């Protein structure tokens, strides 16, 4: 249903020179490919700043891609103009990472939820309010609060308004950028269960960006792990969690805090040494090599000179051998 091929997004950084050329390019997304089936959930995890949100935003055309293609049901959608994109806008929705910035502070919840229905002429004026109330109820908010403004809600409540807004248009694909990280675990569970239920009922697909690996394990069918603009490992949920291959994935798994003080305080972790590298000057060879604890297992200096390609599963010389 969705096919992303070799997507690149580079941002200009620093002052423009004499010829209007930017000083440097920041490679936020640097060759990302994956596909997504109907009814499937693909998780996207990775270090903060590795390009997850940029991938999502470029996919839906919020940023023009530097290169690469994004196909939705076979049609190229990343280079479309605003009006050409309109039919896809209803079918692909996004829940944004920053609920504060993405809700208009001057609109009540009622109009925030009714607006998309109005634009896409999906419900009669009278039905819209009812629909808005149903949506609020579905995400665990009090339907009587539809006349309130965003600032009157707590952080987690605002995040749920964002979820309700994405659901309003009954889309086919929802790109969820950390949809549950601001929620307490009980409400998080409600929202996750709701997303799964909707998926079952309507065959929705999700691209699910999150930091909480336990939630990812719960909701995703497959998971892609990103590091510095690239996917370093992609596998089915069970393969990834039971048998992580890439050294970065292993470090990530070992850093998950455990909700039991006894276990948490004695747990073994793989410590990532070294500085977080800069996307302006990514390390040579394998981008992860300066921080990798397993590179001594690879002969010679291949890790620092030759870039491992993402084969079937993991972009690491160890698993390619």
């Amino acid at each position: 249903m969705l096919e992303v091929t070799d997507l690149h997004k580079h941002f200009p950084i620093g002052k423009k020179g004499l010829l209007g050329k930017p000083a440097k390019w920041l490679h936020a997304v640097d060759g990302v490919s994956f596909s997504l089936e109907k009814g499937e959930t693909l998780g996207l995890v990775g270090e903060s700043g590795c390009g997850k949100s940029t991938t999502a935003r470029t996919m839906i055309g919020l940023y023009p891609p530097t290169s690469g293609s994004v196909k939705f049901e076979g049609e190229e959608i990343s280079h479309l103009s605003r009006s050409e994109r309109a039919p896809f806008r209803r079918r692909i929705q996004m829940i944004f990472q920053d609920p504060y910035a993405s809700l208009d502070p001057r609109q009540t919840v009622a109009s925030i939820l009714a607006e998309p229905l109005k634009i896409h002429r999906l419900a009669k004026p009278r039905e819209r309010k009812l629909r808005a109330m149903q949506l609020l109820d579905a995400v665990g908010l009090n339907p009587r609060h539809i006349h309130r403004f965003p600032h009157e809600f707590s952080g987690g409540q605002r995040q749920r308004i964002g979820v309700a807004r994405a659901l309003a248009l009954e889309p086919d694909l929802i790109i969820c950028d950390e949809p549950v990280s601001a929620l307490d675990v009980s409400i998080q569970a409600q929202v996750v269960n709701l997303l799964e239920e909707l998926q079952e009922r309507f065959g929705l697909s999700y691209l699910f960006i999150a930091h909480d690996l336990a939630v990812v394990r719960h909701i995703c069918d497959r998971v892609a792990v990103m590091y510095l603009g690239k996917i370093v490992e992609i596998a089915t949920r069970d393969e990834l969690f039971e048998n992580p291959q890439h050294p970065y994935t292993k470090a990530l798994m070992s850093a998950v805090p455990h909700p039991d003080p006894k276990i948490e305080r004695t747990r073994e972790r793989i410590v990532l040494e070294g500085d977080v590298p800069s996307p302006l000057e990514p390390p040579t060879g394998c981008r992860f090599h300066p921080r990798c604890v397993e590179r001594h297992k690879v002969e010679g200096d291949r890790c620092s000179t030759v870039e491992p390609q993402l084969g079937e599963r993991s972009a690491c010389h160890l698993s390619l051998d």
Partner: protein
Amino acid sequence: MSNPILDVQNLRVRFETHHGVVRAVDGVSFQLHEGETLGLVGESGSGKSVTNLALMGLVPQPPGVVEADKMSFEGRDLLSLSDRELRSVRGNDISMIFQDPMTSLNPLLTIGRQLTEVLEVHKKVTRREARQICADGLDDVGIPLPKKRLDQYPHELSGGMRQRVMIAMGLLCKPKVLLADEPTTALDVTIQAQILELMKRLQETHGTAIILVTHDLGVVAGMSDRVNVMYAGKLVETADAGPLFEQPRHPYTKGLLASVPRLTGDPNAELDSIPGSPPDLAALPPGCSFAPRCGLKTDQCTTHTPTLEELPTRATSRSSACFENARLTDTLIADTLDYGDRPQGGSFA
């Protein structure tokens, strides 16, 4: 025990809105000591952020009204400080890492401007020194190319980087009290570990006391000495971290812990959650606010309001606000289980 650095008694915050009075914080009392970490967990919308905003003197008034029998910092009454005195405490002695980096950072100013401003207000440093200190601060929170980032605007950073800028800002003046409101929600687990480690180091070198608000119970488990659990504006349970996780007492705390998604167990099973929806703070039910969702409720629960009461345990002090305490106490084993020492650095490294 030494004098508490923060002493809060019967804090109440209400918002007088068009739809009625929202009692966001309703009689909260706690103390915080030097070098201590107090975890604050609870339902979304239960008043955690508003509690912290009240301590900072940042509740918008109107519509907010803040009252307390006592709210003191190092013995000084925070409620009677003048605006000027409050400004010198805020950001310097008590600082807050805000939950929402995007609304707390000014989109029109560079990261550098916003960070150096904090220093210039509170410390006597030159521009240049300030820039260096701020770059070091960004480096500490793991932001690559700190000098370049100082010249960027908030929208040019990723969500997690903005959050780390907020953290760097909160730590710049080495505060005595740090109110950290969901400091690591937007961060991946490896950077999260690094940030928590940084906070612990600050605590060890400066004796900083921390209130840590987070939904991540794993983080609470690893960081906190004590934990306060909030529901609908009230504290419903307070206990040392070990016993709380070992044996939650209040039915809400039990439901909360049962909802935690885990890395083990059947990934296809539906996640547990607490049935029902959170209460409307402008129209709370009579009696215990949790009663409509509680499996243990009796008639008394819907007519009378339970207060936070000390439970009879030998080793540690813990309290719960639930009428079923008496019934549950029979089964309460002595909380003398050995949780070992508090983690000394290392464990988050």
